[in-house]
């Protein structure tokens, strides 16, 4: 099912759709307050965009620099061409050390690679520790938002889930109490896990360090107790210098949830005393996107989620209406690069309002990229046949003023004389919930001619 069909189902439950829409809008408003509190906000965005553009233009050099410095600090750096290789490497590290339970903080990359099912099939239990991730894990669902994974669930539903899986009292729906239950459950896992897996928000070439950002402290619990830390990062996460972090960190938490800083902005420089640290650098299609001039800017994404929260379509259709793991505007520009045919509906899951581009902290031209993907869809013959024909026909008619005038008069005449049911059938999707526009007897140009004569 493409986005439109899934979205139509989502919208059918009007109350729930409005609830979901309000949830996203609320976070968007928090972001606005955060942005308005920073006088140099727009300068920051421009600078962040430029730093990322520079980084991507020297990506290989920075990856090598990062590897050299990380290795010097005692981390072991691995390289994975694709998801399968990433999973094999991670599994290998865990299996060699007899790891039976691993705790994992939020990493969309590991979701993309399908790490959890891979490990579980090989006898290793994975506990996702971000509260939202843990909720969807217990519910056997993927995240529906990249920052707020369970944004689609109501507290009563989470309460019911925890009652079934964690043994909380039936009917308990208070967020504080539910969070406490998750704290207790996950603390047991933090204490018994033999390894911790994290993502990487930023990898700094100059220092060989990585930065992992959370509000919950789950990445820190997961890396300060077990002896093994595995950090999975996409190649695009590397930035040149430590000083650059100031720019991105001033933008990240404010863009995501309107906070001036997250609770834990953790800087890892090599393993901790007596521990091991492994960094897995993953390509999985990113180098290919890097080579596509019109689309490479999407690699600048710092995964703040602001574009999801502002998107009027995402808010009213939910993460599961999208055909890829990452929904919303950023997902809709990344997914087509992986499989255009499978994700052909995503560039059209947008009214091109442009709000996403204006909230993006690194100024990715998201709505222009959606338009560019539409061109790719059309060029590869993936548009629905009816649409293609209609556009061709319309273009033909519009090339000749006399033909256009004739078509216009005929259309208006039809709209005035045809019975409503026929008009409804002819106008398809438009008329299901809307009246057609008025059909005046004279067009503007006809009135102009009558009143002004020939110019």
């Amino acid at each position: 099912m493409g986005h439109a069909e899934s979205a139509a189902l989502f919208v059918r439950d009007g109350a729930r759709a409005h609830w979901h829409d309000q949830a996203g809008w609320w976070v968007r408003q928090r972001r606005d307050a955060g942005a308005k509190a920073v006088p140099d906000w727009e300068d920051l965005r421009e600078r962040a965009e430029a730093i990322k553009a520079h980084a991507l233009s020297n990506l290989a050099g920075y990856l090598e620099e990062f590897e050299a410095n990380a290795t010097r600090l005692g981390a072991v750096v691995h390289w994975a061409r694709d998801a399968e290789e990433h999973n094999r490497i991670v599994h290998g590290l865990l299996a060699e050390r007899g790891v039976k339970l691993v705790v994992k903080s939020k990493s969309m990359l590991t979701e993309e690679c399908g790490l959890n099912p891979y490990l579980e099939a090989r006898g290793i239990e994975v506990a996702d520790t971000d509260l939202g991730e843990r909720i969807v894990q217990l519910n056997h669902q993927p995240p529906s938002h990249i920052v707020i994974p369970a944004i689609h669930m109501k507290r009563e539903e989470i309460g019911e889930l925890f009652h079934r899986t964690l043994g909380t009292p039936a009917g308990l729906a208070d967020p504080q109490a539910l969070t406490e239950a998750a704290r207790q459950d996950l603390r047991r896992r933090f204490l018994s896990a033999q390894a911790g897996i994290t993502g990487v928000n930023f990898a700094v070439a100059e220092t060989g360090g990585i930065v992992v950002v959370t509000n919950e402290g789950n990445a820190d619990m997961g890396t300060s107790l077990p002896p093994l830390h595995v950090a999975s990062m996409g190649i695009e996460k590397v930035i040149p210098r430590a000083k650059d972090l100031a720019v991105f960190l001033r933008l990240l938490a404010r863009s995501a949830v309107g906070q001036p800083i997250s609770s834990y902005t953790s800087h890892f420089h090599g393993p901790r005393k007596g521990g091991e640290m492994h960094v897995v650098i993953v390509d999985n299609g990113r180098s290919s996107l890097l080579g596509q001039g019109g689309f490479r800017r999407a690699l600048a994404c710092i995964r703040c989620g602001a574009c999801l929260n502002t998107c009027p379509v995402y808010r009213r259709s939910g993460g599961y209406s999208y055909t890829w793991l990452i929904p919303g505007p950023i997902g809709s520009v990344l997914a087509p690069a992986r499989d255009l045919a499978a994700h052909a509906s995503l560039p059209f899951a947008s009214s091109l309002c442009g709000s996403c581009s204006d909230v993006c902290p690194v100024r990715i031209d998201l709505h222009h990229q959606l338009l560019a993907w539409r061109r790719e869809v059309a060029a590869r013959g993936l548009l629905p046949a009816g649409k293609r024909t209609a556009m061709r026909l319309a273009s033909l008619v519009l090339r000749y003023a006399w033909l256009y005038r004739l078509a216009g008069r005929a259309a208006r005449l039809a709209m005035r004389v045809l019975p409503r049911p026929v008009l409804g059938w002819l106008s398809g999707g438009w008329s299901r919930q809307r009246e057609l526009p008025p059909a005046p007897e004279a067009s503007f140009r006809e009135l102009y001619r009558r009143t002004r004569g020939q110019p």
Partner: protein
Amino acid sequence: MASRDEVLRAVRRGQPALVEHPGTAGLGVRFPDPVARFAEVVVEVGSACVRAPDLAAADRALRLLPVHRDARRIASLVPGVGGATFDPGAVADPHQLDGLDLCILPAELGVAENGAAWIDVRNFPHQALFVIPEHVAVVVRADSVVHDMHQAYERLRHAKGFALFLGGPSKTADIEQALVIGAHGARSCTVLLVGGVESTPGVRP
């Protein structure tokens, strides 16, 4: 080796022509009273803030707080502050730190724009001490407060090991965006802002 070479080759093939790094100059924010601003924002991000003229006064103020009075196992990495009852250096295994009620932590600097405190664990007996305790108190010297993150990174030369910007207690809003303090890390954070005042005002909040 093969994967490394292949990935780097693919990256080199795809990367665009070099564009200059724009630098980070000309950005940032300045406050008329950065220490006062820091104290305000610390509260905005969920911590309590106690201002004290010196360490001894900070210690006295801390001991009056419920978070200290109710704590049984207390560790302190700031000599003279907190009245430690437990020495984390005496345990070899950080797992045994679970159940630590309160830990007092030293910060290298504070950031006025966001209330963050930079904590470097290099001299800590265990890295986990900033996240495993039920509650934390962070000692920030007023004269170490900088205006913004750019200034912070100018000052920080972090060579090895672990450090973090701590921006308040552990928190989450994953359940219907309802803010809950105390997810997996500390349930509360008390910032002891030392210096720059004559006496210890009432604790905020």
